[in-house]
């Protein structure tokens, strides 16, 4: 602990720069003004302690979830843009020291204010909120803050040298949408007497909502932290190992099914079932992006496969490839989706048919990723082309369905298919067959190109080996 926080040089480095009197007092002045304002506007309120508590809580969340996450995410970006990242990488500190050093060091001022806010929260909470709810609330605030900080740090780690400081637009947009959701959530919590009235079923257990949110945030946060450590140690490798990808997905599926399962047995079975399918498929896609093996990886693998016959080479390359992992991930997804379909009472035929369409749809995405990985050394812009194709594939059927006022057209897009199934079930057999044919046709061209490229790698490897031998 002493090495991680007390004697961590990175924290000291940020203390030097962020705690200069001029800067510090500027932040302190803003903080004091905000706190005084909160106290001032609540003079004469009906229950002033609860009103002040709510407002300080929002202030606290803005500091911990928005400001500190944005500080954390800027750390590596700044190192990269300022051309100091090589020095940072060379520091003989453990990956844990680096990760904690950034998350704490970058937020020294924020943490100081957070500490004072916690004291204020406790003071104003005790009369109105109650001890148990307060503890649950604080655990939730800290877990989500941990999650937000680890995810934002992880998303900012890139070792390529970049010349200019580019803002993390995705993160900013996310935050922009998060703030209204955050305020709404706080309003909801306030109305439910800080979660006292709301319990959530998780499989057969009834869990307070705040603790469930905390657990999910901790699950994601811990994986993100493990990802940071991996990225600091194995910089050039993809975020997920095969085992990591499978374990993370299994955990997500267990959590999602635990939350959604009891709902399926309750109300709108079909809609919730398909919401679970799409939600968990989205996680599968995210993992696929985090586990992308690039051309370099295939090239390295080709050395190990030297001397193998063509079919054996292709088989082993497939097992090693992004497509191979995709099949594995999809199998796990299919297993959990089958459980939810059974709970929802969906017919095996319909569930199987839709799963097959979704598998092909997902494989189309994976094949596009594969093309990106293989062709990127030749063309930097291949990503733009491939992502445009994917956007067209997702959006065009929906647009056509609206333009021609024909709902069945939207089934050509996986999201459209789910919407259609929720609104107008069931899909006729002929429609399902047509969709399968359409998706198989979509996958053929990229699959052929991928195969060709793997064979080209094999030929090039043989050529290089021959040259080396001679």
């Amino acid at each position, binding site marked *: 602990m002493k090495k991680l926080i007390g004697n961590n*040089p*990175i924290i*000291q*480095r940020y203390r*030097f*720069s962020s705690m200069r009197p001029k800067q510090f007092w500027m932040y302190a002045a803003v903080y004091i003004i905000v706190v005084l304002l909160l106290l001032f506007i609540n003079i004469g309120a009906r229950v002033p302690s609860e009103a002040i508590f709510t407002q300080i809580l929002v202030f606290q969340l803005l500091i911990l979830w928005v400001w500190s996450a944005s500080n954390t995410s800027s750390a590596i970006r700044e190192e990269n843009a*300022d*051309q*100091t990242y*090589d*020095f940072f*990488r*060379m*520091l*003989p*500190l*453990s990956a844990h020291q680096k990760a904690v050093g950034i998350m704490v060091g970058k937020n020294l001022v924020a943490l100081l204010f957070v500490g004072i806010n916690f004291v204020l929260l406790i003071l104003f909470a005790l009369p109105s909120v109650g001890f148990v709810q307060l503890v649950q609330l604080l655990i939730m605030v800290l877990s989500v803050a941990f999650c937000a900080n680890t995810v934002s740090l992880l998303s900012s780690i890139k070792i390529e*040298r970049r010349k200019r400081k580019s803002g993390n637009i995705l993160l900013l947009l996310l935050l922009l949408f998060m703030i209204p959701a955050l305020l709404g959530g706080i309003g909801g919590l306030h109305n439910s007497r800080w979660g006292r009235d709301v319990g959530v079923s998780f499989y057969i257990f009834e869990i307070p909502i705040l603790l469930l949110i905390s657990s999910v945030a901790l699950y994601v946060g811990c994986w993100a932290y493990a990802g940071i450590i991996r990225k600091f140690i194995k910089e*050039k490798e993809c975020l997920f190992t095969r085992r990591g990808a499978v374990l993370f997905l299994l955990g997500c599926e267990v959590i999602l099914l635990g939350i959604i399962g009891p709902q399926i047995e309750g109300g709108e079975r079909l809609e919730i079932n398909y919401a679970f399918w799409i939600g968990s498929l989205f996680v599968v896609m995210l993992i696929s992006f985090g586990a992308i093996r690039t*051309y*370099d990886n295939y*090239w*390295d693998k080709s*050395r190990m496969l030297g001397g193998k016959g063509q079919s054996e080479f292709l088989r082993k390359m497939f097992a090693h490839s992004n497509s191979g992992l995709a099949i594995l991930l999809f199998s796990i997804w299919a297993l959990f989706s089958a459980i939810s379909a059974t709970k929802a009472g969906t017919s095996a035929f319909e569930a199987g048919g839709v799963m097959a369409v979704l598998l092909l749809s997902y494989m189309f995405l994976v094949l596009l990723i594969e093309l990106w990985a293989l062709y990127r*050394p030749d063309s930097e812009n291949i990503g733009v082309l491939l992502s445009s194709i994917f956007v067209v594939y997702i959006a065009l059927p929906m647009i056509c369905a609206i333009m021609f006022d024909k709902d069945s057209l939207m089934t050509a897009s996986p999201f459209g298919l789910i919407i259609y199934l929720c609104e107008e079930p069931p899909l006729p057999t002929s429609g399902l067959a047509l969709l399968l044919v359409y998706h198989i046709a979509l996958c053929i061209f990229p699959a052929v190109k991928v195969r060709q490229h793997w064979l080209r790698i094999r030929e*090039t490897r043989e050529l*290089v080996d021959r040259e*080396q031998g001679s």
Partner: protein
Amino acid sequence: MSIIDARGLRKEYGTLIAVKDIDLQVEQGQVVGLIGPNGAGKTTLLRILATLLRPTRGKVSVFGFDIEKDYLQIRKQIGYLPDFFNLYNDLTLEECLRFFAKSYEVDSALIGGRIDAALDYVELEDKRNDLIRNLSRGMVQRMGLATLLVRDPDVYLLDEPASGLDPKARIQLREILRKLSSEGKTIVISSHILTELSGFCSHIAIMHRGQIVRHGSVDEIRANMEGAKVVSISVLDQHEEAADLIRNSDLPVTVTDISSSSITTEVRGGREHIASINKLLVQNNIKVYSLSEDKADLEDLYMAISSDQEEQEPA
């Protein structure tokens, strides 16, 4: 045991081979100049030695530690200065040096003294409390060296340390490197500007298209060089007669220049031909008062070797 020992080192970026099966051994106290044109693989090699890049193949150890398994141990003992770098602009010079000293576990009691010495070494003592963002490029480059000096590594890996510096800053940098080499530090320094390295490298490794085409001490490489030696002959008078005598002899000598003070020749083959020239001139009553073999500097060696390489490669 070599401090740096690279065997069969290879780095591939897709089908591009940046470093091709290199063997390189560097002993304690050597100052090795990595010379080669842009794209020869110098930066890749240095980044591998600095543990920032993983080789595709081959074994590299620094101080006996494997660069892939024990990279943290290696990072503690080497000082690497990248080709393009900056320092933490929001820190003062002293704070920056303190940060590096602490990160590299310099004894707290020693840190103050080390900072003073490092700033003194790079002649930035008067800027101690200035923010790094206020330094000139040359000062940042020297400050970069100071961040290495403050932790006193045994090996310095310097990638084009003089690039972008004005002549005065280059001279200052050379002086610092000279001091370090006189203290017995091991230095591997890359450059594509040969004059930067002449005079203070004990060894050179000439890189060409990812390979080290020559490696050894400057004298060894010079001695192994085949081809013409440049010999200057000074005679009291009769310059033209002396030049004609040489031209008309059977010796493998070409007269390349005649000036009022000397005749410059290129002699192919061994030194016995230089002795034969002397004998020929003296026998013909030419008053020779000096006959000297011009030692090729790094630039000549590099040019000769790289043109050899070009010739050997298939078109």
